[in-house]
């Protein structure tokens, strides 16, 4: 070992990176390939509780499990932790529900080119949320470490910055080259919520287009709730084994939820509803107005279908499908 000074981030580690703890959990978890069909309400009751650490699939406004996040708000689940791994509309929703008190942040409070979420910022500027800083790459690799059954992965990112300082990474030396690396602790969430294109009732899932980190998130998480545009047969899954992104043993509940990523984009299916997302940003300017907006769209909707109806129903969905296919 050379005499290089090795640094440590001072950020809080919200989850244990101990691979043996997860191994012990998975040893006892049933891997039976049974029927896991559920409903949004049942799945949230059964698998998400106050204080859990969440990982949300997709990319903020692309292939997100909106119905499940709405249910968390409706059921007033609080004190969650979550991975802000490009968390845009999902971060906005969790902020609207005041659902969390800690966050591993790589990308939060913004909606990419659409602008910043005033209400998410209020949440993060309040001093009531504990934040540990990371990068998109770092959170991807933290999930990957967990998916690989490792307590950490080395990387060459974050070095020399305040992002590192406010992270919980630790500098290590490569034992072969003595290069300085940032060791990233494995991230094992309590619950993952992922929206997919197709799944069978056992939880074997197919995703079209980019995966973001969802293959790794599913393996890294103790419990996994899947919403899917469509349920398909196990025979159809077995027709193309290379297309299975998430295998059944990772999954605890499967819910058929067409348009489940609305108002987000679902690649190959429907484009994002930019008007509604703009309305969200507008409503956030004023806290009273936001309360009313959430009351109307989420709290007073008995389920996600009602939310879809309030936003134009089948006719709107048809338009978003047309927008996806560029005509």
């Amino acid at each position, binding site marked *: 070992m050379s005499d290089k000074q090795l640094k440590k981030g001072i950020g809080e580690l919200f989850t244990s990176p101990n691979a043996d703890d997860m191994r012990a959990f998975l040893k006892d978890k049933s891997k039976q390939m049974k029927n896991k069909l559920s409903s949004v309400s049942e799945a949230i009751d059964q698998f998400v509780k106050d204080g859990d650490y969440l990982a949300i699939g997709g990319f903020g406004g692309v292939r997100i499990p909106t119905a499940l996040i709405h249910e968390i708000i409706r059921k007033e689940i609080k004190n969650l932790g979550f991975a802000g791994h490009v968390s845009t509309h999902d971060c906005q929703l969790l902020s609207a529900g005041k659902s969390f008190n800690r966050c591993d942040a790589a990308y939060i409070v913004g909606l990419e080119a659409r602008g910043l979420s005033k209400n998410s910022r209020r949440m993060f500027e309040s001093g009531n949320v504990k934040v540990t800083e990371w990068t998109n790459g770092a959170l991807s690799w933290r999930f*990957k470490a967990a998916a690989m059954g490792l307590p950490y992965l080395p990387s060459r990112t974050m070095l020399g910055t305040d992002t590192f300082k406010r992270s919980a990474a630790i500098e290590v030396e490569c034992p072969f080259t003595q290069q300085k690396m940032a060791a990233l602790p494995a991230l094992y969430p309590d619950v993952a919520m992922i929206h997919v294109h197709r799944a069978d009732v056992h939880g074997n899932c197919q995703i079209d287009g980019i995966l973001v980190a969802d293959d790794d998130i599913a393996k890294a998480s103790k419990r996994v709730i899947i919403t899917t545009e469509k349920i398909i047969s196990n025979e159809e899954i077995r027709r193309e084994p290379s297309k299975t992104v998430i295998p059944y043993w990772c999954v605890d509940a499967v819910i058929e939820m067409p348009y489940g990523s609305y108002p987000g984009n679902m690649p*190959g299916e429907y484009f994002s509803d930019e008007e509604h997302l703009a309305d969200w940003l507008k409503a956030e300017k004023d806290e009273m107005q936001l309360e009313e907006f959430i009351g109307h769209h989420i709290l007073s909707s008995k389920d996600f279908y009602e939310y879809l109806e309030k936003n134009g129903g089948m006719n709107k969905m048809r338009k978003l499908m047309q927008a996806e296919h560029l005509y």
Partner: protein
Amino acid sequence: MENTYNPMELMITIAARNLEDGAMVVVGTGVPVAAAMLAQMTQSPNLTILFEAGGIAPLLPTMPISVGDSRTTHKGLKATSMAEIMELCQAGIVDYCFLGGAQIDKYGNLNSTLIGDNYEKPKTRFPGSGGANDLASLCWKTMVVTPQNKKRFANKVDFVTTPGFIEGGTSRVDAGLPANTGPYKVITDIGVYGYHPDSKAMMLLSLHPGKTIDDVKANAEFEVIIPDNYETTVEPSELELKLLREKVDPSGVIIGRG
């Protein structure tokens, strides 16, 4: 005939010219993707565009609204994961990335995390690194496109989200970041900047037509190195402007911002 153009059009054009044919570039939405598209339509038909969410080399039908939306894989060569894109950068495959930020200092360090001096209770919270820190750490050359003013060109950024040359000199490599990487150019509405080969401090490369050294100085809190032999920026050509306005951004989403 002299062309009229706005600062945004100028910045995009300059950015596009910096992307040579056969290069690989990771882009975000807005200016970077517009620049990459313009480059493909001009000197660099074989420019490979990557999006950090997983899209590789799409035939972009229109500008994406998210670096993960379905446009980013439209007739693409590969659709993959964010980890894989970052790993390609880490492996040394990717030539360029484009970044922005609320603040930049003279060594090219960027802040996109917060304003204020209390991390626990920031005055203003921004999105954070996203992929910026990764891309700037791992790609060969980092380009920054930003409007220039004294607040943005700061003596000291409130938070080093993303590494530039850290404290200058060899401090970037000393921190453990890969050799021969780092800030490459900063393209603003006033000029184009590079970095001094030894001190790694920001240095004027070219001044936009109509801009002065006083403009440079008045819009930077830190002292920008002004060499004797800086150039005057070549204005956008008619063809570049036509392509930008008619093909790249026909609805003026980006260039309409001025």
